[in-house]
């Protein structure tokens, strides 16, 4: 098994800082913004962005957790995948929702997440931020904020985002079996 590091701890932090600035730039500040992380690792990335916005704008944005299991288009191809809780304790109506995920690939997770949000309310806008964009889209959905672009050509390659909150270590690696 071959392993290659795409981003280390420092690089992840720098990338998140850049994404944070891009979010603030695009929305001219953080009025009316809220952050929603897609389970599992999107949640921790959203928290880190929330902290960075707090440092820059001195404002704490509302943050929510989205579980997209019940909206997957391949749900019954996987054997009863575990459902976790969606926890959005604020009103998303007329808010600008910044959706955060770790990796974007086919675009199917993002599609499910958008559908899930629409069932909860009617945001003014939804913008999507991801740490790694792997290309290879199967749906016409693209991120507004992307950390690094790493287009996978080799089908056996896997991109893994590891975060210290879940995995004990910060890194983005490519694994080839």
């Amino acid at each position, binding site marked *: 098994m071959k392993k290659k590091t795409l981003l280390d701890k420092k690089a992840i932090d720098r990338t998140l800082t850049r994404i944070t600035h891009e979010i603030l730039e695009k929305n001219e500040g953080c009025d009316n913004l809220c952050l929603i992380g897609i389970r599992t690792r999107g949640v921790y990335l959203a928290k880190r962005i929330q902290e960075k916005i707090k440092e820059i704008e001195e404002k704490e944005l509302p943050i929510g957790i989205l579980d997209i299991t*019940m909206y997957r288009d391949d749900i*019954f191809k996987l*054997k*009863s995948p575990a*459902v976790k*809780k969606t926890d959005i304790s604020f009103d998303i109506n007329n808010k600008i929702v910044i959706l955060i995920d770790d990796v974007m690939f086919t675009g199917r997770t993002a599609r499910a997440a958008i559908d899930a949000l629409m069932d*909860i*309310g009617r945001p003014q806008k939804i913008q999507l931020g991801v740490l790694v964009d792997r290309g290879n889209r199967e749906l016409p959905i693209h991120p507004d904020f992307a950390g690094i672009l790493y287009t996978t050509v080799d089908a056996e390659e896997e991109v893994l985002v590891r975060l210290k909150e879940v995995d004990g270590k910060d890194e983005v690696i490519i694994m080839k079996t």
Partner: protein
Amino acid sequence: MMNWTKKDLLGIKDLTKEEILLIFETAESLKEISLREIKKVPTLRGKTIITLFYEPSTRTRTSFEIAAKRLSADTINISASTSSYVKGETLKDTAKNLESMKPAVIVIRHSMPGAPHMLSRIMKSSVVNGGDGAHEHPTQALLDLFTIKEKKGRIDGLRIIIIGDIIHSRVARSNIFALRNFDTEIICSAPPTMIPPHLEELGVRVEYDIDKAIIDADVIMMLRIQKERGGISYIPSVREYSTLYGLKAKHIEKAKNDVIIMHPGPINRGVEITDEVADGPYSVILDQVENGVAIRMAILYLLVGRGT
């Protein structure tokens, strides 16, 4: 986390502790959907769920239907009085005919113990036991334990008292089977005629005196007299029963001060429980109903998604 593999939910007795905990975790996640303005997710789109009820029901049938609808399944409800049962069709034939219409799940309630088990052997669809005679009522026990866990934060270490027509109660049986997976003390209290022989072999203590049974209780589960199973002939009179075994405010003082009072419904007010207790601050009866929807959503999701 483990995967769900069973085709059917026939009784608590067949479930492992891990399976019970998986149902709880799933229900906990799904409960949030019922608090939304739009109470629906698309998960079971295109799946059909039939409820086939040969005995009357308000809560269980409605709860299954709402659970299915919140998951976007299509639901069909059949009750004995409006089905071809009255024209003499057998249960087996009815089930086989319904299966030809390709339902994903059939929920059945029947007065004959084992009816769901028989269907499960002849059907490809998942079968859920919605109550079979005095045998089992698994979804009721699951929602009861889920409510206990929610209110008490745990199930282990609790003292749980079940009072009423134990011998005819599928709710009591399923609850005892479920509670045995945890480290609980289970005490049953009823007139001797309503205690089935050898009940102690299930790990239950029997205490005929309700005043003694209730001391230091964490949970009190009340049951109604099962008139449809002849429960009334097991006692001298309803008035005497109510005097001796009806739960009243004076009893609550003997229990722990954070005791919860449960009842699977329907309540016979003034018989097994007074208004004061049923509507009082310790009652979680309506929370049980609310949790019933989440538990049934979890079960439908797990059964349909079992990797077909």
